[in-house]
């Protein structure tokens, strides 16, 4: 039996009819066509599907769409300004070459913003530990770490 759910996605109210087994990532990608959130592993390991739910980074490939009933969801499509100006964390990833193929990037940026918000100050060691749930096969993390430190700095200032 399909179920009806409603939530806020990138500031806009959304209602949808889904199968009970529909994952939140499928709702975002297939029904809402927000394809910036990626599926890399289906097992909550790689973090390519990281979004913000009620202000915290979560992996949406491992939760049901129904679990997001009433929640406030922000995806990678929702963090740049309306005029297209990048969020400081996105800008930092570009400045520091913190992305290559771009597939893990949306999840990385969403995690990075949460990391920046969750710490009053950051070190390389803390960033590396906090990025434990986001895998990148291209960059070797070196420039991602630099980007997160720089982006967090800009977000604070």
């Amino acid at each position: 039996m399909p179920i009806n759910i409603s939530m806020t996605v990138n500031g806009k109210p959304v209602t949808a009819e889904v199968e009970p087994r529909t994952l939140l990532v499928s709702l975002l990608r297939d029904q809402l066509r927000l394809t910036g959130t990626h599926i890399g592993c289906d097992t909550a390991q790689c973090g390519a599907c990281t979004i913000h739910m009620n202000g915290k980074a979560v992996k949406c490939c491992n939760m049901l769409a129904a679990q997001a009933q009433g929640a406030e969801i922000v995806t990678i499509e929702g963090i740049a300004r309306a005029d297209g100006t990048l969020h400081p964390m996105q800008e930092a990833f570009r400045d520091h070459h913190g992305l290559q193929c771009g597939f893990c990037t949306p999840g990385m940026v969403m995690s990075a913003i949460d990391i920046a918000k969750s710490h009053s100050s950051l070190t390389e060691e803390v960033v590396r530990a906090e990025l434990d749930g986001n895998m990148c096969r291209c960059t070797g993390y070196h420039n991602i770490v630099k980007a997160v430190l720089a982006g967090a700095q800009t977000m604070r200032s």
Partner: protein
Amino acid sequence: MADMNLIGASVKRKEDYRFLTGAGTYTDDVRLDRQSYAYFLRSPHAHARIRGINTDKAKKAPGVLGVFSGQDMAAAKINGLPCGWLITDVDGQPMKEPPHPVLAQGKVRYVGDHVAVVIAESYWQAKDAAESIEVDYQILPAVVDVAAARETHAPAIHDIAPDNTCYVWALGDKSAVDKAFASAHHVTRLEFINNRLIPNAIEPRAAIGNYNRADESYTLYVASQNPHVERLLMCAFVLGLPEHKVRVIAPDVGGGFGSKIYLYAEDVVVTWASKQINRPVKWTAERSESFLSDAHGRDHHTIAELALDKDGKFLALRVHTTASMGAYLSTFASCIPTILYATLLSGQYATPAIYCEVTAVFTNTAPVDAYRGAGRPEATYVVERLVETAAREMKIDPAEIRRRNFITRFPYQTPVALMYDTGDYHNTLEHALKLADVAGYPARKAEAAKRGKLRGLGYSCYIEACGIAPSNVAGSLGARAGLFEAGEVRVHPTGKVSVFTGSHSHGQGHETTFSQVVASRLGIPIEDVEIVHGDTGRVLFGMGTYGSRSLAVGGTAIVKALDKVVEKGKKIAAHLMEAAETDVEFKDGIFKVSGTDKQVPFAQVSLTAYVPHNYPLDRLEPGLNEQAFYDPTNFTFPAGSYVCEVEVDPDTGVTRIASFTAVDDFGNVINPMIVEGQVHGGLVQGIGQALTESCRYDKDSGQLLTGSMLDYCLPRADDVPSFKIGTEVTPCTHNPLGVKGCGEAGAIGAPPAVINAITDALGVREIEMPATAERVWRAVRQAKAA
């Protein structure tokens, strides 16, 4: 105005905005009208005879549009997947090439082998329906290990190779090597396993086939590193489709590392099936399917010996390797442990005699093919582990033994077929030693010891052959196709430029690097250049991206096309300025008559080329659109020196990379930011091989034991350090950009540096990769007991 200093500048990437805003278009992001979904039923057994398949229930399941098995493929006369490289056995016979059906015919040969496909309105309906397919398997004994595959009573995987041997191949002068060993002062012998790896690009493979009945055409969207090769193989060998009716598009691709070079069964099946059901058919791998069915890498068992004189000069190298092909020959499988491996065994050294014998075997495992480095990491591991071990045994400083043996004169003909064009190995090593502060190492080791930690130092001086390949050489070595590259420069009337390249970017940043080359050569702003790739409908031809070949081969094809544009532009400019063509020079985007103030800008020439009311029509065609093919005259030879320091906790066996220094010579560098990024990524894949990654199959059942990211340990951010990167430049002598390629270096050079450091820290001779905490802990215990 154009920036004339684009070459060597860390230009920020053009492609980043779309990736950072979630606006990239990967294959799974493509949604076609009326698209259906495919699910592949895969073999749960490593080796079994299929006595029957009953798909009746699945065909009647809700939403199902079609169910096909091997029988349907045979009835449709669909051929198997071809192998692109013919290796000739030591006895002159061609390698054993068993059929590689897209859906299993009579037998399955590895866990994950394709048995049937179900196509339905939704992915879940297809997956649910697949559960009701009844397959009657007669389970057969399986063999997954390379050594076991050659044992007398090993189960035969293919009828045409009863001993599971694909080929025995050799390179080098065996008698010269044997003679050198007979008179050697010292011989160092090592036996090792080059651990099998699973590539794990973060984007899983995906494909959408779309047949259009109106014009009998096909479009395949696919996560591929080389769409033209996919099309060629599919049309010419597998499906027999007319090539002009097939368009292959590889849109944004989320990493490849080799695993997306190949023509896979899924690509063929969705293309064919879209005609059968007259709907687009989409398939996206789940990660577990990536583990099971992406081509894997490495998997060598090697015995290697180095002969030295009393001064530590290398006299000869003898190598025997058994390499797994997996259950079938993937697209380039056969050339990896041969042409891309044995030819690199000279390393950076003037070893006078080398002999290598390679036995390629079939096993009940996923096919093995090129994975970042492809043969060269395996060769570097052999050479650099032997060299470091020999130095320790002979009590010569490991850096010094390398200095005594470095090649210093170029061009240098190795005893294993390659001709190195240029390099400066001494300089590169000294740079690395300085950058790594090796002079300060004893103090760091002593300080670590105070904290109860074992600190170790390891080197690796790698070489690789990139820019594959001079086609005549590749052909003589068994390549069934030339490996040149195509480029096209289309100047629009307003002077803006679209460049079409057969190279493919899946993270390498070609849109930026290639634009830098084009903008600087034409003297136009980088914003005025667009790079188009990954679409057989737009790009003339291409052999794709692998083997760090894009800039050296694809970039050179573009440069050749640019040269033609400038040549034609001079003719047009000469006409406009009423000057002799020989008097026209082109610089910084301006055509000038030498020694005068007469000039016309690039955009005026391009406009004239397209809308000619004043044009030498009797002598020159209008338009400014040039194509070029480039066939390299030699391989390129990037080389570098890596220094790794580790700290081992003897109580837990945990190894921490305390520092890692990489100094590379990639020839000229167009964009240092991008090049360093490539090195970082390669290093972490190399460190992953050395410390964490290993593909394991159960030796009895043949089940993949490392089938998820929970079991197969990809390096995470806190497993690796930040890197110290240095650059040396000896420009490549045989391409106009002087570039060599940088994509694989890190993965090639890192593993022996890490293992050399760990064995140094522990004071042991050998430790197997990956040097997990358990293995290191056991080695610490054994070293203490000894």
